[in-house]
């Protein structure tokens, strides 16, 4: 058998982090009761005029700049004809002739080293609605909540040649776009999904093989499985003549582990693109361009190096922080306030992460006031508040924007230096628990911990642990 290489190009759809839809003021929020976020414009009713959401252009430009693209300073919208009930106007408003960004590059790293993947273009467009096929009534039910929710489509050149590269590319895209707050990129909610265009050819052959497209893939592991299956199917067809390969759109069934033909692949001509006369061209002037360029975040890998080399964080801590822009923002604000890099990172990576997990929230959903976190880090580090009580204060900070020091004072969380009170509590606890005292005196070290716990409880955690331990030992 000949050696084959796989040729893959991806079209990645990313839902933009806006409040409202691309062409009307309806909410772009995920979910909700069916057809609650709709108006005559996004329902395709006659006579309605779309008006572009400025934030969509901001985010389109941001994505383009993050992926090293050229930004088209005059960008236009076009109609793509497509008859299906999830598109109420029977066309999708998208960009064909002058997309917002073109000719970029994304660098990926795999076990084979670094590789640059070329970006052909990024265009802004509206999402389609959702259809529910109802077997009971044998009809189709239409929900237009998602219609006109803003998307960008990132089209790569066919530069990817393995599932590993595809995964690295998607993870890199997700990291960059989340960092720039372009999108939450949550594949499980459909805010990031991709179409995989795949063909195979003998190694050394210049011409591409027959290309198939698997649409709407929204899980990285499913994408890996689909690429393995589809490339094997192509090679089998060529080598053994098991079937005739045709250019078509296919559906991946992850349960059956197979792809199935959906329809013949449309060509650009079939969509009959033409400029949308209802949407005026958007001209990006220098001031607008500069505002977006100046707002771009430091890239995650640059932050990582800075955290390690300048702030002295370990590699693990730096890696954990740069996973999320929200963590980086909170860390930098906390460090600026406290001057304690390692401690600020620890509070985020351990205590904040625990709270997020308990609340089933992702790291990007962290909305804590970073400066206030810095105050908390400081008052715990200098012993003003115990670590245990600091964690209690942190939990409140998740829900309310409080001043942790003031909150500690008002709620009795300040560590007491009143040795008289500590001695009084220790003596009372010892008197009330002769069994633990006897156990300790007979050599059971654990009994000391029992007494320590009871004293600390009486003191509401507001005591220096070493001072408390020493006081107990003195009084035993």
């Amino acid at each position, binding site marked *: 058998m000949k050696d084959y290489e796989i040729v893959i190009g991806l079209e990645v759809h990313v839902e933009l982090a*806006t*409040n*409202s839809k691309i062409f009307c*003021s*309806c*909410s*772009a929020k995920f979910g909700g*009761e*069916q*057809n*609650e*976020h*709709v*108006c*005559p414009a996004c*329902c395709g009713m006659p006579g309605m005029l779309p*008006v*572009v*959401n*400025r*934030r*969509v*252009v901001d985010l389109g430009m941001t994505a383009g700049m993050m992926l090293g693209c050229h930004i088209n300073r*005059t960008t*236009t919208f076009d109609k793509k*004809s497509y*008859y*299906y*009930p999830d598109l109420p106007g029977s066309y999708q408003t998208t960009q064909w002739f002058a997309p917002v960004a073109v000719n970029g590059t994304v660098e990926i790293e795999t076990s084979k080293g670094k590789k640059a993947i070329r970006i052909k273009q990024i265009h802004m467009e509206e999402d389609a609605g959702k*259809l*529910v*096929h*109802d077997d009971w*009534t*044998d*009809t*189709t*039910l*239409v*929900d*237009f909540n998602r219609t006109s929710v803003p998307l960008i489509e990132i089209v790569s050149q066919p530069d990817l040649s393995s599932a590993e590269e595809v995964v690295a590319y998607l993870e890199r895209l997700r990291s960059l776009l989340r960092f720039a707050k372009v999108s939450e990129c949550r594949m499980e909610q459909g805010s990031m999904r991709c179409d995989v265009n795949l063909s195979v050819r003998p190694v050394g052959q210049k011409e591409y093989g027959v290309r198939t497209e698997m649409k709407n893939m929204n899980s990285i592991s499913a994408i890996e499985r689909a690429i393995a299956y589809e490339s094997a199917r192509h090679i089998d067809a060529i080598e053994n003549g098991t079937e005739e390969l045709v250019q078509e759109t296919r559906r991946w069934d992850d349960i059956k582990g197979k792809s199935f033909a*959906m*329809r013949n692949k449309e060509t650009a001509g*079939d969509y*009959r693109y033409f*400029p949308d*006369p209802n*949407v*005026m*061209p*958007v*001209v990006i002037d220098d001031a607008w361009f500069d505002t977006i360029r100046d707002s771009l975040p430091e890239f995650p890998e640059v932050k990582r190096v800075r955290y390690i080399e300048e702030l002295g964080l370990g590699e693990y801590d730096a890696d954990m922080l740069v996973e999320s822009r929200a963590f980086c923002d909170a860390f930098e604000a906390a460090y600026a306030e406290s001057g304690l890099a390692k401690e600020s990172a620890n509070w985020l990576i351990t205590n904040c992460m625990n709270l997020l997990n308990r609340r089933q929230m992702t790291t990007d959903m962290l909305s804590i006031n970073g400066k206030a976190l810095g105050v908390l880090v400081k008052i715990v580090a200098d012993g003003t508040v115990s670590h245990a009580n600091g964690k209690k204060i942190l939990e409140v900070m998740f829900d309310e924007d409080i001043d942790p020091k003031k909150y500690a004072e008002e709620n009795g969380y300040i560590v007491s230096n009143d040795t008289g009170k500590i001695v009084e509590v220790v003596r009372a606890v010892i008197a009330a628990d002769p069994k633990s005292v006897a156990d300790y005196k007979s050599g059971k070290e654990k009994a000391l911990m029992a007494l320590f716990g009871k004293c600390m409880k009486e003191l509401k955690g507001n005591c220096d642990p070493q001072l408390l331990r020493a006081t107990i030992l003195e009084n035993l």
Partner: protein
Amino acid sequence: MNETVLKRLEKLNQLALTEEEEKAFLAFYAEQEEEQKALAAVNTEEVERMVHVMPVYTVVRDDVVIKMFEREDLQKGAPETMDGYWQVPRLVE
């Protein structure tokens, strides 16, 4: 334009034209093609690309949510609805 292209267009637009309608369309497109040829003969090399007749650009709005319509009002004119959905004939590819 020819019959094959017209059939393809019919399929894309989900139309089922009668033989007479097809003939009428073919004649119409033949006329259009002649007009296109006349237009294509004009030298437009130095004419700037124009998307709109009026020189209006960058009509944008702020990213603010405004709810202006209730679902029930929007669905008043719908032939069929069910549980807040628009209901249409089943369509499976």
